[in-house]
Protein backbone atom coordinates (compact mmCIF):
# COMPACT_ATOMS: atom_id res chain seq x y z
CA UNK A 1 0.00 0.00 0.00
CA UNK A 2 1.10 3.54 -0.69
CA UNK A 3 -0.06 6.96 0.36
CA UNK A 4 -2.99 8.06 -1.80
CA UNK A 5 -3.68 4.59 -3.21
CA UNK A 6 -7.35 4.86 -2.19
CA UNK A 7 -9.45 7.51 -3.88
CA UNK A 8 -12.85 9.17 -3.85
CA UNK A 9 -14.34 8.63 -7.31
CA UNK A 10 -17.94 9.64 -6.64
CA UNK A 11 -19.31 12.50 -4.58
CA UNK A 12 -22.74 14.08 -4.66
CA UNK A 13 -25.36 15.68 -2.47
CA UNK A 14 -29.12 15.39 -2.67
CA UNK A 15 -30.71 17.29 -5.57
CA UNK A 16 -31.61 20.01 -3.09
CA UNK A 17 -30.60 20.85 0.44
CA UNK A 18 -32.65 23.06 2.74
CA UNK A 19 -36.30 22.52 3.63
CA UNK A 20 -37.50 19.20 2.19
CA UNK A 21 -40.65 18.09 4.02
CA UNK A 22 -41.42 15.63 1.21
CA UNK A 23 -38.22 13.67 1.81
CA UNK A 24 -37.94 11.00 4.48
CA UNK A 25 -34.57 10.45 6.11
CA UNK A 26 -34.22 7.21 4.14
CA UNK A 27 -35.02 8.95 0.85
CA UNK A 28 -32.31 11.54 1.55
CA UNK A 29 -29.79 8.68 1.93
CA UNK A 30 -31.02 7.00 -1.24
CA UNK A 31 -31.01 10.18 -3.34
CA UNK A 32 -27.47 11.04 -2.26
CA UNK A 33 -26.33 7.47 -2.87
CA UNK A 34 -27.84 7.27 -6.35
CA UNK A 35 -26.33 10.63 -7.27
CA UNK A 36 -22.89 9.65 -5.99
CA UNK A 37 -22.81 6.28 -7.74
CA UNK A 38 -23.95 7.96 -10.95
CA UNK A 39 -21.28 10.63 -10.49
CA UNK A 40 -18.71 7.84 -10.21
CA UNK A 41 -19.87 6.30 -13.47
CA UNK A 42 -20.70 3.08 -11.67
CA UNK A 43 -23.78 0.94 -11.01
CA UNK A 44 -25.19 0.15 -7.59
CA UNK A 45 -24.18 -3.49 -8.17
CA UNK A 46 -20.53 -2.39 -8.19
CA UNK A 47 -20.78 -1.41 -4.53
CA UNK A 48 -19.57 -4.08 -2.10
CA UNK A 49 -19.05 -2.02 1.05
CA UNK A 50 -21.47 0.26 2.91
CA UNK A 51 -20.99 2.80 5.68
CA UNK A 52 -23.62 4.98 7.27
CA UNK A 53 -24.97 6.26 10.57
CA UNK A 54 -28.05 5.01 12.37
CA UNK A 55 -30.87 5.57 11.91
CA UNK A 56 -31.62 4.27 9.31
CA UNK A 57 -28.09 2.85 9.40
CA UNK A 58 -25.99 0.92 6.90
CA UNK A 59 -28.16 -2.19 6.82
CA UNK A 60 -31.39 -0.36 6.00
CA UNK A 61 -29.66 1.84 3.45
CA UNK A 62 -27.95 -1.11 1.75
CA UNK A 63 -31.13 -3.18 1.75
CA UNK A 64 -33.10 -0.33 0.21
CA UNK A 65 -30.51 0.12 -2.55
CA UNK A 66 -30.16 -3.63 -3.18
CA UNK A 67 -26.52 -3.67 -2.14
CA UNK A 68 -25.13 -6.97 -0.86
CA UNK A 69 -22.07 -5.78 1.03
CA UNK A 70 -19.16 -7.82 2.27
CA UNK A 71 -18.05 -4.92 4.50
CA UNK A 72 -20.25 -2.83 6.82
CA UNK A 73 -19.37 0.17 8.98
CA UNK A 74 -21.95 1.73 11.27
CA UNK A 75 -19.60 3.97 13.23
CA UNK A 76 -21.76 6.70 14.71
CA UNK A 77 -19.88 9.41 16.59
CA UNK A 78 -21.95 12.40 15.52
CA UNK A 79 -21.35 14.76 12.64
CA UNK A 80 -17.79 13.65 11.95
CA UNK A 81 -18.81 10.00 11.43
CA UNK A 82 -18.47 10.20 7.63
CA UNK A 83 -14.82 11.27 7.89
CA UNK A 84 -14.23 8.18 10.02
CA UNK A 85 -16.08 6.05 7.47
CA UNK A 86 -13.68 7.30 4.78
CA UNK A 87 -10.72 6.43 7.01
CA UNK A 88 -12.11 2.96 7.70
CA UNK A 89 -12.85 2.44 4.01
CA UNK A 90 -9.20 3.12 3.15
CA UNK A 91 -8.16 0.33 5.50
CA UNK A 92 -10.87 -2.01 4.23
CA UNK A 93 -9.95 -1.50 0.59
CA UNK A 94 -6.25 -2.00 1.33
CA UNK A 95 -7.09 -5.17 3.26
CA UNK A 96 -9.21 -6.51 0.42
CA UNK A 97 -12.35 -6.56 2.53
CA UNK A 98 -14.12 -4.38 -0.04
CA UNK A 99 -13.32 -2.98 -3.46
CA UNK A 100 -15.84 -0.15 -3.77
CA UNK A 101 -17.37 1.47 -0.69
CA UNK A 102 -20.44 3.71 -0.51
CA UNK A 103 -20.69 6.17 2.40
CA UNK A 104 -24.13 7.76 2.83
CA UNK A 105 -25.63 10.60 4.85
CA UNK A 106 -29.24 11.73 4.98
CA UNK A 107 -30.90 13.73 7.69
CA UNK A 108 -34.27 15.37 7.97
CA UNK A 109 -32.84 17.74 10.53
CA UNK A 110 -35.39 20.47 9.97
CA UNK A 111 -38.54 18.65 8.85
CA UNK A 112 -38.00 15.58 11.04
CA UNK A 113 -39.55 13.20 8.52
CA UNK A 114 -38.79 9.61 9.45
CA UNK A 115 -35.95 10.71 11.67
CA UNK A 116 -34.80 9.10 14.87
CA UNK A 117 -33.65 11.53 17.51
CA UNK A 118 -31.78 9.28 19.89
CA UNK A 119 -32.31 10.31 23.51
CA UNK A 120 -29.59 9.14 25.84
CA UNK A 121 -30.67 6.61 28.46
CA UNK A 122 -31.81 8.28 31.70
CA UNK A 123 -28.99 6.56 33.58
CA UNK A 124 -26.18 7.70 31.26
CA UNK A 125 -23.53 10.02 32.73
CA UNK A 126 -24.84 12.85 30.52
CA UNK A 127 -28.37 12.37 31.85
CA UNK A 128 -27.22 12.17 35.48
CA UNK A 129 -24.61 14.93 35.56
CA UNK A 130 -25.53 17.44 32.83
CA UNK A 131 -29.22 17.16 31.86
CA UNK A 132 -30.42 18.14 35.38
CA UNK A 133 -28.83 21.55 34.84
CA UNK A 134 -31.03 22.48 31.92
CA UNK A 135 -28.98 21.72 28.84
CA UNK A 136 -31.04 21.62 25.66
CA UNK A 137 -29.15 20.51 22.61
CA UNK A 138 -25.93 21.78 21.06
CA UNK A 139 -26.46 25.56 21.60
CA UNK A 140 -26.39 25.07 25.37
CA UNK A 141 -23.43 22.67 25.47
CA UNK A 142 -21.08 23.58 22.63
CA UNK A 143 -21.14 27.14 23.99
CA UNK A 144 -19.97 26.38 27.52
CA UNK A 145 -16.18 26.42 26.94
CA UNK A 146 -16.27 29.68 24.98
CA UNK A 147 -16.25 32.25 27.80
CA UNK A 148 -13.14 30.61 29.24
CA UNK A 149 -11.47 30.94 25.82
CA UNK A 150 -12.56 34.58 25.53
CA UNK A 151 -11.15 35.39 28.96
CA UNK A 152 -7.85 33.58 28.39
CA UNK A 153 -7.10 35.03 24.97
CA UNK A 154 -9.09 38.27 24.92
CA UNK A 155 -11.21 37.22 21.94
CA UNK A 156 -13.77 40.00 21.46
CA UNK A 157 -17.47 39.69 20.70
CA UNK A 158 -16.77 41.56 17.44
CA UNK A 159 -14.09 39.07 16.36
CA UNK A 160 -16.41 36.19 17.13
CA UNK A 161 -19.21 37.88 15.18
CA UNK A 162 -16.91 38.24 12.18
CA UNK A 163 -16.78 34.46 11.67
CA UNK A 164 -20.30 34.27 10.16
CA UNK A 165 -19.63 37.53 8.27
CA UNK A 166 -16.61 35.97 6.54
CA UNK A 167 -18.45 32.76 5.72
CA UNK A 168 -21.43 34.64 4.33
CA UNK A 169 -19.03 36.10 1.74
CA UNK A 170 -18.41 32.56 0.48
CA UNK A 171 -22.11 31.69 0.65
CA UNK A 172 -22.90 34.71 -1.52
CA UNK A 173 -21.04 32.91 -4.33
CA UNK A 174 -22.86 29.62 -3.86
CA UNK A 175 -26.36 29.47 -5.41
CA UNK A 176 -27.24 26.43 -3.25
CA UNK A 177 -26.50 28.25 0.01
CA UNK A 178 -29.54 28.90 2.17
CA UNK A 179 -28.43 32.41 3.17
CA UNK A 180 -26.53 34.54 0.63
CA UNK A 181 -27.18 38.17 1.55
CA UNK A 182 -24.13 39.98 3.00
CA UNK A 183 -24.19 40.57 6.76
CA UNK A 184 -22.20 42.83 9.07
CA UNK A 185 -20.77 42.41 12.55
CA UNK A 186 -23.57 44.71 13.75
CA UNK A 187 -26.18 42.42 12.17
CA UNK A 188 -24.69 39.48 14.04
CA UNK A 189 -24.48 41.26 17.39
CA UNK A 190 -28.03 42.58 16.96
CA UNK A 191 -29.47 39.14 16.20
CA UNK A 192 -31.35 37.34 18.95
CA UNK A 193 -29.32 35.94 21.86
CA UNK A 194 -29.58 32.15 21.77
CA UNK A 195 -27.16 31.09 24.47
CA UNK A 196 -24.85 33.84 25.75
CA UNK A 197 -22.41 34.74 24.33
CA UNK A 198 -23.74 33.30 21.04
CA UNK A 199 -26.34 35.12 18.91
CA UNK A 200 -28.60 33.56 16.32
CA UNK A 201 -26.28 34.36 13.41
CA UNK A 202 -23.40 32.64 15.24
CA UNK A 203 -25.37 29.37 15.28
CA UNK A 204 -25.65 26.93 12.38
CA UNK A 205 -28.72 26.40 10.26
CA UNK A 206 -31.02 23.43 10.77
CA UNK A 207 -31.83 21.88 7.39
CA UNK A 208 -32.72 18.72 5.49
CA UNK A 209 -30.33 17.09 3.07
CA UNK A 210 -27.89 14.33 2.35
CA UNK A 211 -24.91 13.22 0.36
CA UNK A 212 -22.76 10.24 -0.42
CA UNK A 213 -19.27 9.21 -1.46
CA UNK A 214 -17.90 6.35 -3.54
CA UNK A 215 -14.42 5.17 -2.60
CA UNK A 216 -12.21 2.65 -4.38
CA UNK A 217 -8.57 1.93 -5.15
CA UNK A 218 -6.59 4.28 -7.38
CA UNK A 219 -5.89 1.50 -9.87
CA UNK A 220 -9.62 1.07 -10.49
CA UNK A 221 -10.20 4.81 -10.87
CA UNK A 222 -8.47 5.23 -14.24
CA UNK A 223 -11.50 4.35 -16.37
CA UNK A 224 -13.96 6.40 -14.35
CA UNK A 225 -15.24 9.82 -15.45
CA UNK A 226 -14.31 12.03 -12.51
CA UNK A 227 -10.76 13.05 -11.59
CA UNK A 228 -9.84 10.93 -8.56
CA UNK A 229 -9.39 12.56 -5.17
CA UNK A 230 -6.59 10.82 -3.31
CA UNK A 231 -6.91 10.20 0.42
CA UNK A 232 -3.42 11.10 1.66
CA UNK A 233 -3.91 11.05 5.41
CA UNK A 234 -6.62 10.50 7.99
CA UNK A 235 -7.11 10.80 11.73
CA UNK A 236 -9.81 10.03 14.27
CA UNK A 237 -10.24 10.27 18.01
CA UNK A 238 -12.51 11.55 20.77
CA UNK A 239 -12.06 13.53 23.95
CA UNK A 240 -15.08 13.44 26.30
CA UNK A 241 -18.76 12.53 25.99
CA UNK A 242 -19.52 15.27 28.54
CA UNK A 243 -18.71 18.86 27.59
CA UNK A 244 -18.04 19.67 31.26
CA UNK A 245 -15.19 17.15 31.24
CA UNK A 246 -13.12 18.67 28.41
CA UNK A 247 -9.55 18.72 29.63
CA UNK A 248 -8.92 22.36 28.66
CA UNK A 249 -11.83 24.61 27.67
CA UNK A 250 -9.62 26.70 25.38
CA UNK A 251 -8.54 23.89 23.03
CA UNK A 252 -10.00 20.70 21.61
CA UNK A 253 -7.77 17.72 22.31
CA UNK A 254 -9.77 15.77 19.73
CA UNK A 255 -9.07 18.34 16.98
CA UNK A 256 -5.39 18.38 17.94
CA UNK A 257 -4.93 14.64 17.91
CA UNK A 258 -6.94 13.76 14.79
CA UNK A 259 -5.38 16.53 12.69
CA UNK A 260 -1.83 15.78 13.83
CA UNK A 261 -2.24 12.15 12.84
CA UNK A 262 -3.71 13.01 9.43
CA UNK A 263 -1.00 15.55 8.63
CA UNK A 264 1.74 13.13 9.68
CA UNK A 265 0.34 10.30 7.57
CA UNK A 266 -0.05 12.61 4.57
CA UNK A 267 3.47 13.96 5.04
CA UNK A 268 2.31 17.55 4.61
CA UNK A 269 2.86 20.79 6.45
CA UNK A 270 0.39 23.62 6.96
CA UNK A 271 1.92 25.61 4.12
CA UNK A 272 0.92 22.83 1.71
CA UNK A 273 -2.79 23.30 2.42
CA UNK A 274 -4.64 25.24 -0.27
CA UNK A 275 -8.18 24.86 1.04
CA UNK A 276 -9.66 24.09 4.42
CA UNK A 277 -13.02 22.97 5.76
CA UNK A 278 -13.65 23.13 9.52
CA UNK A 279 -16.95 21.97 11.01
CA UNK A 280 -18.75 25.17 11.96
CA UNK A 281 -21.76 24.27 14.06
CA UNK A 282 -21.12 27.53 15.92
CA UNK A 283 -18.92 30.55 15.28
CA UNK A 284 -16.23 29.60 17.75
CA UNK A 285 -15.60 26.12 16.36
CA UNK A 286 -13.51 27.28 13.35
CA UNK A 287 -11.50 29.44 15.79
CA UNK A 288 -10.65 26.39 17.87
CA UNK A 289 -10.03 24.38 14.71
CA UNK A 290 -7.55 26.82 13.16
CA UNK A 291 -5.52 26.84 16.38
CA UNK A 292 -5.82 23.18 17.28
CA UNK A 293 -4.83 22.10 13.77
CA UNK A 294 -1.82 24.41 14.04
CA UNK A 295 -2.59 26.89 11.25
CA UNK A 296 -2.19 29.78 13.71
CA UNK A 297 -0.90 30.11 17.26
CA UNK A 298 -3.08 29.79 20.36
CA UNK A 299 -5.33 32.80 20.74
CA UNK A 300 -4.63 34.10 17.22
CA UNK A 301 -7.51 32.69 15.18
CA UNK A 302 -10.08 35.39 15.95
CA UNK A 303 -7.80 38.11 14.62
CA UNK A 304 -6.71 35.88 11.72
CA UNK A 305 -10.31 35.54 10.53
CA UNK A 306 -11.20 39.19 11.24
CA UNK A 307 -8.22 40.28 9.11
CA UNK A 308 -9.78 38.54 6.12
CA UNK A 309 -7.38 35.62 5.75
CA UNK A 310 -10.10 32.99 5.39
CA UNK A 311 -12.57 34.81 3.12
CA UNK A 312 -12.56 35.15 -0.69
CA UNK A 313 -9.14 36.40 -1.73
CA UNK A 314 -7.56 35.42 1.58
CA UNK A 315 -4.55 33.16 1.89
CA UNK A 316 -6.37 30.29 3.62
CA UNK A 317 -9.82 29.79 2.04
CA UNK A 318 -12.05 28.32 4.76
CA UNK A 319 -15.56 26.87 4.54
CA UNK A 320 -15.99 27.90 0.94
CA UNK A 321 -19.50 26.48 0.59
CA UNK A 322 -20.66 28.98 3.22
CA UNK A 323 -20.44 26.38 5.97
CA UNK A 324 -22.97 25.23 8.47
CA UNK A 325 -23.52 28.88 9.33
CA UNK A 326 -24.79 29.85 5.85
CA UNK A 327 -24.86 26.88 3.43
CA UNK A 328 -26.63 24.00 5.14
CA UNK A 329 -26.48 22.00 8.37
CA UNK A 330 -28.56 18.87 8.59
CA UNK A 331 -27.31 17.94 12.06
CA UNK A 332 -24.45 15.62 11.11
CA UNK A 333 -22.74 18.12 8.83
CA UNK A 334 -19.46 16.27 8.20
CA UNK A 335 -20.57 14.83 4.84
CA UNK A 336 -20.82 18.37 3.45
CA UNK A 337 -17.23 19.16 4.48
CA UNK A 338 -16.01 16.26 2.34
CA UNK A 339 -18.31 17.15 -0.57
CA UNK A 340 -16.91 20.69 -0.74
CA UNK A 341 -13.30 19.47 -0.45
CA UNK A 342 -13.92 17.09 -3.37
CA UNK A 343 -15.57 19.82 -5.48
CA UNK A 344 -12.65 22.19 -4.85
CA UNK A 345 -10.09 19.50 -5.77
CA UNK A 346 -12.00 18.66 -8.95
CA UNK A 347 -12.35 22.34 -9.87
CA UNK A 348 -16.15 22.06 -9.70
CA UNK A 349 -17.02 24.28 -6.71
CA UNK A 350 -19.46 27.16 -6.95
CA UNK A 351 -16.94 29.42 -5.22
CA UNK A 352 -13.91 27.78 -6.81
CA UNK A 353 -10.52 28.62 -5.34
CA UNK A 354 -7.85 28.66 -8.09
CA UNK A 355 -5.23 25.91 -8.07
CA UNK A 356 -6.33 23.80 -5.12
CA UNK A 357 -4.11 20.72 -4.85
CA UNK A 358 -4.49 19.85 -1.17
CA UNK A 359 -7.69 20.26 0.82
CA UNK A 360 -8.13 19.37 4.49
CA UNK A 361 -11.46 18.62 6.17
CA UNK A 362 -11.73 18.77 9.96
CA UNK A 363 -14.86 17.18 11.39
CA UNK A 364 -16.47 17.44 14.78
CA UNK A 365 -18.81 14.97 16.44
CA UNK A 366 -21.06 15.88 19.34
CA UNK A 367 -19.89 18.93 21.28
CA UNK A 368 -16.08 18.81 20.91
CA UNK A 369 -16.62 15.11 21.62
CA UNK A 370 -15.21 13.28 18.61
CA UNK A 371 -13.07 14.38 15.69
CA UNK A 372 -11.98 13.16 12.29
CA UNK A 373 -9.58 14.69 9.78
CA UNK A 374 -9.04 14.01 6.08
CA UNK A 375 -6.14 15.24 3.96
CA UNK A 376 -7.22 15.03 0.32
CA UNK A 377 -5.45 15.82 -2.95
CA UNK A 378 -6.00 15.73 -6.69
CA UNK A 379 -2.44 14.50 -7.17
CA UNK A 380 -0.52 11.48 -6.00
CA UNK A 381 2.21 12.38 -3.53
Amino acid at each position, binding site marked *: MARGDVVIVGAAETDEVGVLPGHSTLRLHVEGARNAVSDAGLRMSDIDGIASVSAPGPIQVAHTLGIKPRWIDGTGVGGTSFLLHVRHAVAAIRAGHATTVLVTHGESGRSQVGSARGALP*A*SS*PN*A*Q*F*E*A*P*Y*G*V*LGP*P*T*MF*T*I*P*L*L*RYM*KKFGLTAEQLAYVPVAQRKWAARNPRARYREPITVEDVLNS*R*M*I*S*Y*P*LHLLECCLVTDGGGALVITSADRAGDLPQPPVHILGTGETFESP*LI*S*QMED*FTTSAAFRRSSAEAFAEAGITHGDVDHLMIYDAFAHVPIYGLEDMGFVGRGEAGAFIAEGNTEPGGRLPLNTNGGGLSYTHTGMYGMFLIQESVRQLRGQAAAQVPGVEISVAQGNGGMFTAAGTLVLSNRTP
Partner: protein
Amino acid sequence: MSARAKPAPVPTPETQPYFDAAAEGELKIQRCLDCGKPFFYPRPCCPFCASDALEWITTSGRGTLYSYTINHRPAPGFEQDAPYAIAVVQLSEGPRMMANIVGIENTPDNLVLDMDVEVTFEKRGDVTIPQFRPAGREAI
Protein backbone atom coordinates in the same frame (compact mmCIF):
# COMPACT_ATOMS: atom_id res chain seq x y z
CA MET B 1 -45.08 26.40 39.10
CA SER B 2 -43.85 25.12 35.78
CA ALA B 3 -45.98 22.71 33.85
CA ARG B 4 -43.15 20.22 33.53
CA ALA B 5 -40.71 19.07 36.18
CA LYS B 6 -36.99 19.61 35.77
CA PRO B 7 -35.13 16.42 34.90
CA ALA B 8 -34.17 14.19 37.81
CA PRO B 9 -31.14 11.92 37.55
CA VAL B 10 -31.62 8.15 37.61
CA PRO B 11 -28.70 6.84 39.70
CA THR B 12 -26.86 3.65 38.87
CA PRO B 13 -25.15 1.49 41.52
CA GLU B 14 -21.82 3.23 41.00
CA THR B 15 -23.34 6.73 41.23
CA GLN B 16 -25.73 6.08 44.12
CA PRO B 17 -23.20 7.09 46.84
CA TYR B 18 -22.86 10.51 45.16
CA PHE B 19 -26.60 11.13 45.31
CA ASP B 20 -26.88 9.62 48.81
CA ALA B 21 -24.21 12.09 49.99
CA ALA B 22 -26.01 14.98 48.29
CA ALA B 23 -29.18 14.04 50.18
CA GLU B 24 -27.12 14.37 53.38
CA GLY B 25 -25.79 17.78 52.33
CA GLU B 26 -22.32 16.65 51.26
CA LEU B 27 -20.58 16.79 47.89
CA LYS B 28 -18.58 13.59 47.53
CA ILE B 29 -16.37 12.61 44.63
CA GLN B 30 -14.23 9.57 43.96
CA ARG B 31 -10.48 9.22 44.38
CA CYS B 32 -8.24 6.47 43.07
CA LEU B 33 -6.49 4.44 45.77
CA ASP B 34 -3.74 3.43 43.35
CA CYS B 35 -2.73 6.70 41.69
CA GLY B 36 -4.27 9.01 44.28
CA LYS B 37 -6.06 11.31 41.85
CA PRO B 38 -9.59 12.58 42.49
CA PHE B 39 -12.04 12.70 39.58
CA PHE B 40 -15.54 13.54 38.48
CA TYR B 41 -18.03 12.19 37.25
CA PRO B 42 -18.61 9.03 39.32
CA ARG B 43 -17.72 5.87 37.42
CA PRO B 44 -16.59 2.28 37.99
CA CYS B 45 -12.87 2.88 37.40
CA CYS B 46 -10.20 5.56 37.51
CA PRO B 47 -9.89 7.54 34.24
CA PHE B 48 -6.16 8.04 34.84
CA CYS B 49 -4.99 4.48 35.52
CA ALA B 50 -8.11 2.27 35.05
CA SER B 51 -7.84 0.97 38.62
CA ASP B 52 -11.08 -0.13 40.24
CA ALA B 53 -9.72 0.51 43.75
CA LEU B 54 -11.62 3.70 44.51
CA GLU B 55 -12.75 5.60 47.57
CA TRP B 56 -15.28 8.38 48.14
CA ILE B 57 -13.99 11.64 49.60
CA THR B 58 -16.03 14.52 50.96
CA THR B 59 -15.07 17.73 49.18
CA SER B 60 -14.84 21.15 50.75
CA GLY B 61 -17.83 22.15 48.64
CA ARG B 62 -15.88 25.15 47.43
CA GLY B 63 -14.76 26.05 43.95
CA THR B 64 -14.58 28.73 41.28
CA LEU B 65 -16.74 29.57 38.28
CA TYR B 66 -14.80 28.08 35.37
CA SER B 67 -17.10 28.84 32.43
CA TYR B 68 -20.78 29.12 31.55
CA THR B 69 -23.40 29.93 28.97
CA ILE B 70 -26.67 31.76 29.59
CA ASN B 71 -29.44 29.84 27.89
CA HIS B 72 -32.31 31.88 26.46
CA ARG B 73 -34.29 28.89 25.14
CA PRO B 74 -35.23 26.93 28.26
CA ALA B 75 -35.11 23.18 28.53
CA PRO B 76 -38.36 21.52 29.65
CA GLY B 77 -38.95 22.43 33.30
CA PHE B 78 -36.74 25.52 33.16
CA GLU B 79 -39.34 27.84 31.63
CA GLN B 80 -39.55 30.00 34.77
CA ASP B 81 -35.77 30.35 35.00
CA ALA B 82 -34.84 31.55 31.51
CA PRO B 83 -32.46 33.04 30.80
CA TYR B 84 -30.41 30.87 33.11
CA ALA B 85 -26.74 29.96 33.32
CA ILE B 86 -25.43 26.47 32.69
CA ALA B 87 -22.07 26.60 34.40
CA VAL B 88 -18.99 24.50 34.98
CA VAL B 89 -17.42 24.81 38.42
CA GLN B 90 -13.83 23.93 39.17
CA LEU B 91 -13.76 22.30 42.61
CA SER B 92 -10.92 23.26 44.93
CA GLU B 93 -9.97 19.55 44.80
CA GLY B 94 -9.38 19.91 41.02
CA PRO B 95 -12.15 18.16 39.10
CA ARG B 96 -14.85 20.16 37.31
CA MET B 97 -18.59 19.64 37.24
CA MET B 98 -21.67 21.18 35.70
CA ALA B 99 -24.11 23.14 37.85
CA ASN B 100 -26.50 26.06 37.87
CA ILE B 101 -25.54 29.19 39.79
CA VAL B 102 -28.32 29.93 42.25
CA GLY B 103 -29.00 32.82 44.60
CA ILE B 104 -27.98 35.50 42.12
CA GLU B 105 -29.52 36.86 38.94
CA ASN B 106 -27.79 35.09 36.07
CA THR B 107 -26.37 38.00 34.07
CA PRO B 108 -22.93 38.39 32.46
CA ASP B 109 -22.18 41.21 34.92
CA ASN B 110 -23.02 39.10 37.95
CA LEU B 111 -21.29 35.94 36.78
CA VAL B 112 -17.59 36.70 36.64
CA LEU B 113 -15.25 33.88 35.69
CA ASP B 114 -13.11 32.61 38.58
CA MET B 115 -15.47 34.01 41.23
CA ASP B 116 -15.68 31.88 44.38
CA VAL B 117 -18.70 29.61 44.63
CA GLU B 118 -19.86 27.06 47.17
CA VAL B 119 -22.11 24.06 46.99
CA THR B 120 -25.76 24.01 47.91
CA PHE B 121 -28.33 21.33 47.19
CA GLU B 122 -31.62 21.02 45.33
CA LYS B 123 -34.27 18.30 45.49
CA ARG B 124 -35.33 16.81 42.17
CA GLY B 125 -38.11 14.38 42.84
CA ASP B 126 -36.63 11.67 45.04
CA VAL B 127 -33.06 12.68 44.22
CA THR B 128 -30.90 15.55 45.51
CA ILE B 129 -28.40 17.25 43.21
CA PRO B 130 -25.55 19.63 43.99
CA GLN B 131 -25.86 23.26 42.88
CA PHE B 132 -23.57 26.23 43.47
CA ARG B 133 -24.05 29.78 44.74
CA PRO B 134 -21.69 32.72 45.10
CA ALA B 135 -19.51 32.04 48.16
CA GLY B 136 -20.35 33.75 51.43
CA ARG B 137 -24.05 34.20 50.74
CA GLU B 138 -26.86 33.13 53.00
CA ALA B 139 -28.34 29.77 52.16
CA ILE B 140 -31.42 30.08 49.99
